[in-house]
């Protein structure tokens, strides 16, 4: 009983503090709950609390955000949305179309967001010309992670184009290694496919196919060629890949069982956690044929309309803080991505992040900065799902020809539109 009382006091106290917090509270829905990600969110919380606002954590773990979205939908429908929620890509527009998101134009103007963000990026954050969301970071998806040791043993160089790829992969296979580490999950198949499509088709082709869904491009001979090259990669992947998680595939590259992996820059965290050094123990290169191009995957917070004016102030402060260099730097160092705003000090970032920043700026200028289809940046979730189905089925089904797959792709995209 005595013990119980001892514990009761802090519980009661903590309840009291929760209820008494009214001035400027932001409730933030996110699914960054694992190690490095949780540390990244804690940074934002600290920065906001320093400004005198209260942070109410609304973390829903699991399923890559699926469960979080289900919770968010029920909260929004019942008229009680959180201040901010981790929503990305075209889903931002879907929420904005429902009239649930708030206008951040004044914060954006003060912070000069239009100047700081490339237009392709700010377009994703806007609905009908108004800012409704804040970008947190930029992931580059078209990376090739390679183990230089394996390449040395096989006596070949790391391939720069998809045309050179088979020769290098054959040599690696002959030397007794798995050329390409891959996990047989739909999104990983799509990530690999998108890299092939961008490398062989170019940015213009990619944009027409996966952003505009131009039927002629989707059905073109080039697309058939891309599907063929994509299927050819199958023989460089070990047969146990079905259902494998991406980080297991990354560890195969780390251990020297496999030579390379096509994966976004979140893979870097796995290398670093294993004590490997960028540029020495592992190489980060653009995926074959995409050296000038950049497929982006941007995490962002969409801001919901709030009734309480104090909370709305805190919400604006949150939006402002997210775009400030202090947060952008610490957060992205933790997460392995790069800051979304230009002109920041790069002193603390490693070799790969540095290369990513260069490519980001260069590709933004040349129009080679393209949204990632596999990560929901270029298209709505239903069209994305339709593409996933075709790609993953084609990649796993021996009997399906590239031409059939292309016809199916066009048909599926049309049906989903």
């Amino acid at each position, binding site marked *: 009983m005595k013990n119980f009382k001892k514990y009761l006091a802090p519980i009661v106290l903590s309840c009291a503090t929760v209820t008494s917090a009214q001035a400027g509270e932001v409730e933030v829905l996110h699914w960054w709950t694992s190690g490095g990600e949780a540390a990244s969110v804690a940074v934002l919380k600290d920065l906001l609390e320093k400004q005198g606002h209260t942070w109410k954590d609304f973390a829903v773990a699991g399923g890559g955000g*699926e469960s979080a979205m289900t919770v968010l939908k029920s909260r929004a429908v019942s008229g009680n949305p959180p201040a901010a929620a981790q929503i990305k890509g075209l889903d931002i527009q879907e929420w904005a179309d429902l009239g649930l998101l708030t206008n951040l134009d004044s914060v954006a103007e003060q912070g000069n967001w239009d100047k700081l963000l490339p237009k392709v990026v700010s377009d994703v954050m806007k609905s009908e010309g108004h800012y409704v969301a804040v970008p947190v970071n930029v992931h580059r998806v078209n990376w090739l992670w390679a183990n230089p040791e394996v390449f040395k043993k096989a006596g070949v160089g790391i391939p720069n184009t998809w045309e050179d790829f088979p020769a290098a992969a054959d040599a690696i296979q002959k030397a007794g290694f798995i050329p390409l580490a891959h996990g047989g999950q*739909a999104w990983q198949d799509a990530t690999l496919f998108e890299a092939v499509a961008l490398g062989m088709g170019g940015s213009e082709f990619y944009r027409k196919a996966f952003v505009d869904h131009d039927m002629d491009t989707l059905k073109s001979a080039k697309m058939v060629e891309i599907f063929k090259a994509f299927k050819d990669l199958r023989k460089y992947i070990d047969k*146990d890949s*079905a*259902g494998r998680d991406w980080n297991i595939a990354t560890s195969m590259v780390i251990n020297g069982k496999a030579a390379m992996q096509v994966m976004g820059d979140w893979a870097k965290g796995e290398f670093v956690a294993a004590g490997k050094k960028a540029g020495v123990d592992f190489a980060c290169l653009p995926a074959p044929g995409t050296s000038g191009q950049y497929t982006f995957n941007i995490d962002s917070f969409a801001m919901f309309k709030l009734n309480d004016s104090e909370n709305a102030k805190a919400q604006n402060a949150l939006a402002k803080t997210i775009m400030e260099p202090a947060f952008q730097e610490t957060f992205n160092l933790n997460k392995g991505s790069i800051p979304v705003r230009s002109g920041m000090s790069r002193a603390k970032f490693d070799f790969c992040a540095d290369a990513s920043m260069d490519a980001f700026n260069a590709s933004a200028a040349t129009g080679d900065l393209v949204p990632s289809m596999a990560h929901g940046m270029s298209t709505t979730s*239903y069209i994305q799902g339709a593409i996933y189905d075709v790609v993953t089925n084609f*990649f796993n089904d021996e009997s399906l020809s590239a031409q059939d797959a292309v016809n*199916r792709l066009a048909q599926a995209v049309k049906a989903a539109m």
Partner: protein
Amino acid sequence: MSAEEPLQTAKQSSGLLQRIEHWIPKVVVAPTFIMMLVFIYGYIIWTGVLSATNSRFLPSYDFVGGLQYEKLFENPRWETAYTNLALFGGLFIAICLFIGVTLAILLDQKIRREGVLRTIYLYPMALSFIVTGTAWKWMLNPGLGLEKLVQDMGFENFSFDWIVDPDMAIYTLVIAAVWQSSGFVMAMFLAGLRGIDNSIIQAAQMDGASMPRIYWRIIVPCLRPVFFSAFIILSHIAIKSFDLVMAMTGGGPGYATDLPATFMYAHSFTRSSIGLGAASAMLMLGGVLAILIPYLYSELRGTRNG
């Protein structure tokens, strides 16, 4: 007068008691009844309504008629899902019934240690499908499990890679599901066997019938109601199979092991196609009714005749 009064109050109070007795069951049952009405039948109707709309991200009420059903039947993934269900369900039910009856008959031979054996066979039922799925995923993985084990024992050419083969992966689900459920079916049949009157069997033995003949002509027909219950239970396990697929193959390779339940979940909750998801859910309901209605019909007709 004074003698009548207590009698009347007794009558009154017994009337009140009767009324309470009459109402109490209804009052007690009412909340569950209302909850069932709303949460089961209400939502079935709502799902039906949604399947006729173009709901995507959130429910909307723009009616499009049968468009979602048309889309569903043009979708090659749905085709895979329902063929898989037919394959998986058919094999799962047939094999479970066969193994269940065989084990039950063998256990019924008054053997020693029956209790221990029964527990061993029944034990998998205590696990959730998630555990079963994960364990079988590891066992069947060519690089980790069975194939590697046999190859390490010296049989280099041994190959058992069904789980990574899109054409065969669905059968690995059958293996895992049968392992989990056949013990339970065995227990049902064992109970049925114990319920059969011994004198019938003795009479047949007196007439000189052989043991296999007795089983085939007398005992198995006596188990008809058990077959029915087992069939209903197994078919509903098959139709709502979701966790096993998620844990074991995640629907893969590709979408080769997709079942209607996983299709419905993917479209309603991760792909923002609530309309299409609702349409597939309605077809699943249709599938369940197609099994249930003939069963109920035969059962109800049976009681009326009896």
